[in-house]
């Protein structure tokens, strides 16, 4: 901790942001954000995806420069020019995903920030390690390889790393998303100890329940702006329910009707089955029951997911990222096999079929990882339009590629979908994000589609292309032969396109909400983990 404010009483501002604004192309990520983080206080920062929390963290940790605004650390104006500058100012950040080297020991990981010319001073490092271990009240062997530690323990190492150069401000970005319930409890203990030691703790989360349990002060961000605050005085006097109502209203911008909405939510979430059967007796086209998958470390697998989608219906799937949405999409597409559970399309069991088999039955999947898995970016646009059909008699004869047909096909789709590209032979990587998305839509939306799974349809697109993609999804709504599942972490989007919206939480469907007025708040509550209980 560098500037030690003389005589600063407890509760004094450790870090203050004045009118921080940061603009990215097409997005105002932070809009005149003013916040003050005080010593000895746990300050929860709540907001949906895209509310501007990540940008704010980037700014205080030296990864992102603000366009305007000023920052004060312990009363002195500073400029945070790099991550190491932030650490030297005593501002430590623990990111959502663990950033440690698994093969190195705990102590070695903590020494990684040292300049390369300095020899590793084990004695001094061990001393600081012991101090911090005592402060956090954690038991960690300094020589254990990090890869052998549990995620909770790895996070403790991350906290140590963040506090290594001083204990002024600690940012915790979604610290509970990877933890077990026990891990969350342990983290709470560590946070309180640090607070009592005088550290300003900023706790960034989606989960309202955790915020109201742990925080001394809550601020809510929405669309880059600070839209409200619950002060320590209010927190100590309000009932937990009242706090939740108030914050939900701030987060999702639907105010005044909370009581009415709760009833909507409870009715829907408690009995999705009954509501479905009441729906004109239409048989669901897609039925997923008890879907479970095996996840890798750090991945959220499906844990008994049930989903039914009727023909012509768009089922939105909402939820904070990393609650099993990726596995759900892959299970539907056949890219990932379930360990248990059943899946059927139009009454036919398709659980044993892989991607190719399901595609023949009309299953289509538009992935959000357009370049990472959806396409072969260095290959031509024309090839990318047929990679799910390689060997089909339409484009291959006796194993020989009929390039003319493939190129004709590509030119047709380029025209139909108004894809902007130099030619059908141009490498896909040269296209803009919006046009790559159109390539995927063109490839997947063929006449015989029975189930279309769309994952984050507008992820990474600019406003105009976002609107186009949404309009396209709306244009295929009500197509009587097809069930559509749209997975997104943008609530606005799901409310815009869906008939019903399911909320995923920890690999299960926490509830299904019919998309009508008040749905926003009901979904917000489910997402914030307060559920229908």
């Amino acid at each position, binding site marked *: 901790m560098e500037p030690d404010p003389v005589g600063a009483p407890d509760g004094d501002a450790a870090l203050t942001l004045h009118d921080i604004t940061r603009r990215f192309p097409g997005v105002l990520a932070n809009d005149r954000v003013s916040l003050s983080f005080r010593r000895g206080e746990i300050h929860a920062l709540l907001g949906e995806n895209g509310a501007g929390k990540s940008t704010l963290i980037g700014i205080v940790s030296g990864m992102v420069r603000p366009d305007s605004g000023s920052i004060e650390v312990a009363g002195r104006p500073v400029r945070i020019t790099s991550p190491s500058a932030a650490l030297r100012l005593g501002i430590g950040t623990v990111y959502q995903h663990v950033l440690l080297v698994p093969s190195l020991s705990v102590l070695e990981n903590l020494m990684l920030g040292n300049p390369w010319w300095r020899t590793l001073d084990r004695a001094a490092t061990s001393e600081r390690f012991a101090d911090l271990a005592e402060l956090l009240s954690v038991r960690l062997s300094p020589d254990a390889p990090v890869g052998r530690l549990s995620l909770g323990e790895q996070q403790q190492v991350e906290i140590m790393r963040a506090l290594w150069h001083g204990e002024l401000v600690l940012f915790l970005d979604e610290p509970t998303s990877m933890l077990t319930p026990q891990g969350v409890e342990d983290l709470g203990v560590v946070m309180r100890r640090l607070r009592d030691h005088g550290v300003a703790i900023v706790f960034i989360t989606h989960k309202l329940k955790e915020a109201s349990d742990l925080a001394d002060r809550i601020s809510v961000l929405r669309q880059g702006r600070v839209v409200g605050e619950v002060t320590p005085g209010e927190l100590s006097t309000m009932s937990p329910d009242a706090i939740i109502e108030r914050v939900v209203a701030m987060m999702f911008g639907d105010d005044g009707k909370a009581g009415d909405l709760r009833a909507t939510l409870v009715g829907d979430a408690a009995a999705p089955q009954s509501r479905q059967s009441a729906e004109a007796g239409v048989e669901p086209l897609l039925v997923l029951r008890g879907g479970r998958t095996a996840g890798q470390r750090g991945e959220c697998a499906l844990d008994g997911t049930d989903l039914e989608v009727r023909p012509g219906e768009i089922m939105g799937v909402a939820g904070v990222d990393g609650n099993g949405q990726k596995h759900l999409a892959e299970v539907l*597409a*056949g*890219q990932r096999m379930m360990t248990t559970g059943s899946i059927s399309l139009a009454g036919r069991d398709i659980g044993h079929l*892989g*991607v*190719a*088999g399901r*595609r023949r039955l009309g299953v289509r*999947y538009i*992935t959000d*990882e357009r370049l*990472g*898995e*959806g*396409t*072969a*970016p*260095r*290959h031509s646009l024309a*090839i990318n339009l047929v*990679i*799910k059909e*390689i*060997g089909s008699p339409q484009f*291959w004869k006796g*194993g*020989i*590629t009929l*390039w003319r047909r493939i190129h004709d096909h590509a030119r047709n789709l380029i025209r139909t979908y108004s894809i902007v590209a*130099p030619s059908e032979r141009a490498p896909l990587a*040269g296209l803009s994000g919006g046009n790559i998305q159109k390539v995927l839509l063109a490839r997947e939306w063929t006449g015989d589609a029975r189930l279309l799974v769309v994952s984050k349809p507008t992820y990474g697109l600019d406003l105009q292309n976002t609107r186009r993609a949404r309009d396209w999804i709306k244009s295929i709504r009500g197509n009587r032969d097809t069930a559509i599942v749209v997975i997104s972490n943008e609530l606005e989007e799901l409310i815009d396109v869906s008939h019903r919206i399911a909320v995923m939480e920890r690999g299960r469907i926490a509830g299904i909400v019919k998309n009508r007025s008040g749905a926003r708040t009901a979904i917000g509550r489910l997402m914030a983990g307060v559920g229908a209980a």
Partner: protein
Amino acid sequence: MLRRHPLVSSLHGMVSVLLPVVLALAVGAVLLLALGKDPLAYYGYVVKRGLLSPTGLEASLTRTAPLLLIAAGLIVAFRSGLWNLGVDGQLLLAAVVTAALAPVLADRMPSLLMVAVCFAVAMAVGAAWSLIPALLKAQFGVNEIISTLMMSFLGVSFANVLIKIPFNDPLTTVPQTATLAVEDRLMRLADTTIHWGVLLALAVVIAVHHAMTMTALGMRLQIVGANMRTAVHAGLRLRLLVVVAFAISAGLAGLAGAVDVLGVHGTIRADWNPAYGIVVIPLVFLARFNGYAVIAFVFVFAVLVIGGESAARRLDVPTYFVLVLVGLVMLFLAVTEFLDHRRRQTARN
């Protein structure tokens, strides 16, 4: 983005390949001067003995046969994104099996049938030696660079065991396989010393080059090479394709071994290991996996090797100096590629 005239871009391509070669020759000349040798004399002998003299040219062309077959296999593997660095072991094992089998078969069947059987067996042996790395890669994602290299060491040692124990010809004092009679070896072209394996190798490289772009299998393999996750997403049978790509690649390495034995050596002595793979791998990179470019580079390399052997003897330069030149070409290729990439990026901004 500006679209360049095709002539300009093909010129650009030529320069970006020739420039590293010229630079490598220049630095090689400096090295020769430092060794107290006359670089012009060295390069002169290389060209004279490797290219211009009839026997030298014949030897150079003959040498291209195994190199081209290995390269053909590597084109398949590399375009599928699989780094089969174990071609030396695959080649040697197949060569040893061929050397043991050919003399036995030669007495029992017509020559052409013997050759066909030997080729088939050699390809099977090569492919079999790639099966373990292929399955490890397909099933568990084990890095094939390591596993193929390790299998290569094992293959080379195992080949020696085969030569020294079961396949040893008791009539010779040094451990070696029974010798295939000269008249049973691959037929020569006209009255040269070049055998028809060279033509076969050329045909295979060209066939492989086109198969990668003109067939469904080729496109599947290229998608695997582009990104395995894309292949899974597209519903390709990734595991099978990985095994197939390895089998083709290693099978062609095995064929290279058989061609070298049946066309040139007729027998294999213990501890013989030509280590062709280690030089063909950079050449295939240099050619950017293009079959026609591979043919050109392999020919130039063969001239360098044959001429270099002769030049080395006359000027008392180590034979391995040729490898220094190849290494320098690779180095400069990487540097020009990097600079070109940066230039294009600055031009775009």
